[in-house]
């Protein structure tokens, strides 16, 4: 499984990528929407993990752009907000219910990744 992590907190995605790597999941990371869009145009990924809020673009809009570029790409959202309204609005707009609250539990993340990839 190849995963792209996108969050403006570089130290978060850097550490998360290393931890996923230890568990045999190949993870790359980007900290801006533009860089993430460029990356998915250049490399193959199975799954993207996006922060709901990224400078200059919302995770929801980035999801739409990445989906248009790579229709097979699957998505999980991370959010630091965690209100029910955010969750409902995000789920309705994206059609996915794979939201994780920060701080993320790595086992829960991998569980959701596996479930999503097996669908």
């Amino acid at each position: 499984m190849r995963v792209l992590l996108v969050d403006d907190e570089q130290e978060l995605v850097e550490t998360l990528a290393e931890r996923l790597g230890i568990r045999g999941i190949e993870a790359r990371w980007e900290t801006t929407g533009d860089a993430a869009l460029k990356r998915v145009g250049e490399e193959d990924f199975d799954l993207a993990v996006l922060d709901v809020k990224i400078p200059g673009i919302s995770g929801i809009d980035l999801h739409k752009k990445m989906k248009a570029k790579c229709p097979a790409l699957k998505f999980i959202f991370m959010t630091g907000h965690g209100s029910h309204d955010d969750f409902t609005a995000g789920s309705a707009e994206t059609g996915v219910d794979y939201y994780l609250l920060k701080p993320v539990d790595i086992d829960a993340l991998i569980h959701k990744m596996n479930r999503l990839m097996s669908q």
Partner: protein
Amino acid sequence: MTGRPDVKIETELQFFGKMTASISHEIKNVMAIINESAGLLEDYTLMAEKGLPIDPERLKVVSRRVTKQIRRAVEIAKNLNSLAHSVDHFQKSVDMGEILELAVGLSTRLAEMRSVTLDLKLPTDPVTVITSPFHLQNLIWQVLDFAMDASGEGKTVGITFKKEDGAVKIRFTGLAGLKTLPPDKFPTEKEENLLLILGTMIHQDAEAQEIQLVLPK
């Protein structure tokens, strides 16, 4: 001119809500990084238990990362504390430099989300004014919020202040977008209420690409 009480209360509560929501989001990010760092240390420990060597340099990187995030959290907590205490007194002598540093500290993450840089330049000589620190903080945020939209392609809002003719003038500069925004867009009723409370005047100068707040000394 008298402001509607509900607009005054709405403006104050929305400001507090906006700032505390942003702060809580930032604290969650800090906690997330510390959480992953602790998890990574645990991963290293498990690897060592299985006989895999741990590079001490990797441990130093994780340790420095945690220390950096704790310093960041201390700064966030300091700003939150200053904001909370800004309602202790509605008339007190405040240091303009401290007020603007807090305003920038509270607004930087919100600015980054809009890809805008806040560039604060403080004069060397301290200046104090007698005012309501909470309402001044609220007004500065309202101006910054608008200024970010008006920052044009430069995407940088300059902030500075100086004493002039017995008053203190705060300048928000680099607002190239002022020319293209409708003139009736700002100030709104919210800002008018705050200006009234503070006895402050606001000037927009599209040619000079700046907004000025003039506080009585």
